[in-house]
């Protein structure tokens, strides 16, 4: 019996180690996002970086500041929210993105952190992995196409292929953030943080609220309906999109539905289209469509029989990428101004946790009012 118990314990420990589950809520800087590395994209010239993102004169980040932080592990209590506040404060407004890797937890931690992200104008990413390693992509630029279309040239100050090469070389020796199994996605209460982002990238996994506390069925039903009403109001406030809210309500609490969340709120999307002349999200989808057509026709050409020359599709992909580069720069610069202004407004002499708590609480009360 003892032997069996010991064996099972070893197996359990082995399984825990193999999936690298994060047992506690953690917030840490993504090393590759430190400005000392990011500046490599601009040939090491911080002035070019400043010009690219239209930073206010005289405001520059310190090289060791982080532009992105990784949030991982279960959302448990108020100390989790404080950890996020801390990293925002430590980086003096230069933190721009939160990467999320959590299977969820307490709703109040999710919504508080979501409101915090929105207040500080932060972008949120559902962390994705490739070959078991978390992928970090700078949030303000995208790499140039492999083949630059003949009629196109890189927008001024944009990171060039050489800049991207230098950046990759700079981060190559950093320890990778391993993501094998376990909580390699943003699910449940984590989606509330994701929805709070000003720019939301990646797939969230949603389901209806559940409650494990011992109550009568009637009390439980009433309580959960109230939570649902509140969360629908929350997602509406964050403008996650009608599909997202519909799927939230349609998905039973025992399962999750993977769902892309609208990248921007409708009004932000409208603003970006007006200011930048194109729809960044739509261009991303166009590029995806071209890649899909390209891949399908390539497969047809390879395995079934000759069809078309793929040159024109390649050329189209190049044009879209070039346009995306310009539009993403435009949107990033708008976001940058807003974020820096928001930080100055919220943390004029450093971040006061009590004041921030009060601000979030007020926002949540306002949201709750709309749910009744």
């Amino acid at each position, binding site marked *: 019996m003892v032997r069996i118990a010991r064996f099972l314990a070893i197996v359990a420990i082995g399984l825990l180690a193999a999936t690298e589950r994060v047992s506690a809520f953690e917030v840490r800087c993504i090393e590759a996002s430190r400005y000392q590395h990011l500046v490599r994209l601009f040939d090491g010239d911080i002035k070019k970086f400043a010009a690219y993102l239209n930073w206010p004169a005289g405001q520059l980040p310190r090289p060791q500041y982080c532009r992105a932080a990784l949030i991982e592990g279960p959302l448990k209590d108020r100390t989790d929210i404080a950890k996020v506040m801390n990293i925002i404060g430590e980086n003096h407004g230069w933190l721009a993105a939160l990467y999320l890797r959590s299977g969820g937890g307490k709703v109040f931690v999710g919504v508080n952190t979501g409101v915090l992200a929105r207040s500080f104008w932060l972008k949120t990413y559902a962390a994705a992995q490739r070959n078991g390693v978390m992928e970090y992509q700078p949030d303000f630029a995208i790499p140039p196409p492999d083949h630059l279309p003949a009629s196109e040239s890189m927008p001024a100050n944009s990171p060039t292929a050489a800049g991207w090469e230098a950046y990759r070389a700079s981060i190559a020796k950093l320890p990778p953030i391993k993501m094998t199994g376990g909580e390699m996605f943003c699910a449940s209460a984590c989606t509330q943080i994701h929805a709070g982002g000003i720019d939301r990238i990646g797939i969230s996994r949603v389901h209806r609220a559940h409650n494990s506390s011992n109550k009568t069925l009637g009390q439980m039903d009433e309580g959960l309906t109230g939570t649902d009403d509140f969360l629908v109001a929350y997602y509406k406030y964050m403008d996650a999109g009608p599909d997202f809210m519909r799927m939230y309500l349609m998905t039973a609490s025992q399962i999750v539905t993977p769902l892309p969340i609208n990248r921007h709120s409708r009004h932000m999307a409208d603003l970006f289209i007006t200011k930048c002349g194109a729809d960044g999200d739509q261009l991303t989808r*166009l590029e995806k469509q071209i890649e899909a057509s390209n891949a399908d026709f390539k497969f047809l050409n390879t395995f*079934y*029989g000759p*069809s078309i020359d793929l040159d024109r599709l390649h050329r189209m992909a190049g044009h879209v990428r070039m346009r995306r580069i310009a539009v993403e720069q435009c949107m990033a610069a708008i976001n940058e101004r807003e974020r820096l202004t928001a930080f100055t407004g919220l943390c004029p002499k450093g971040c006061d946790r009590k004041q921030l708590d009060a601000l979030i609480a007020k926002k949540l009360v306002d949201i709750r009012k709309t749910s009744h």
Partner: protein
Amino acid sequence: MRTKTFILPLLAALLSSAIMPGTAAATLTFNCVEPSRYANILPIFNDDPNAYFDYFKPAQRRLPNLQSCRALIVNGSIGSGDAEALLGKIVAGQGGLAVLYLAFDGSNLVEEAKMALIVRAFALKTSAVRGPRFVYSPDFATFWREPVALARSAGNSPAAVAPFSPLDGGLRLFKTRKDLLLPVAKEHAFCLDGCWAVWYAGVDRTRSASQAPAPAGPAPHIDATVARRRALLSHFIDSGQWAAANDPVLKRVPISARFWTEKVEHSLRQVCEAELSVVKSLESSLSQSFDASVKRKLDPSSVEELTPLFERFNRAGARIEKCYAVAYERGRMANFRRQCPKTCDASALNDTFSKQAEKLLQEASQIK
């Protein structure tokens, strides 16, 4: 009793090897790729025979035997009698066998030549397996990715777009099968040596992505004469002409080959000319509209206008795929009927292919 049952087959084996010196017993296995059994293929067509007939357009409205296999995996090390065994499988399949997945090694020019002749005569497709993890996917249709909605960001659900190919729903379901990953004997998980000669005879030849590690152990001894004759034979079976002794093409075949012979490509282009011209025209329209959109800096309205063009373009691609499937299917069935006009005389066919193989080897040996 146990000793007796062990010793008797051993004696028989020793005796047979004494009677036929220098010939090894048949050593290839020809196993059905289970998901390719027609009973398993039919759900791709929503279990609807009419959908099957509409896709393949067979001369007669008759389904293949649902228990027969569309694909076989050929595994082991080639030896004498293997070509006859393959012929037996083809005959038993009554024309339903379409693809051979080749994961074998070894060298036996007579059997290789005979198998290659059989493969070409019955217009089979071949696929070279290059690793122990072999995932089956149907040879006649692929899943066309879902159209991407190009509506501008407005927070609304884009209108649902019908799938590009009528088989997309069925293929999506098929992909969820748990038996698509097939076990390949690790010691014979790569198409090597004589396998390439058989592969080269396929009317459509593909190869799986190479999986590391490549076979370990000492590199097999490659007899230059055997390799040269193999190349000569492969080239002849493919083109119907003997290559000159110093023809550089002999250095490329059979391993480095195009996916189709020129003859097959020409035939496909002819049969599917209408579909090809449509896809080219749509690609041209799409390209023009795209250029116009680029002039408008890819503004949201102009990008939205591309949605139907992409749909039409990809749908046309799926139609080409279908046309090719029909062409291959008809070609294979016609070849089967040519070899087996009313009934199949497997023994007579075997003799014919044996004689052809011997004759070819004889002729190949004359080319110095």
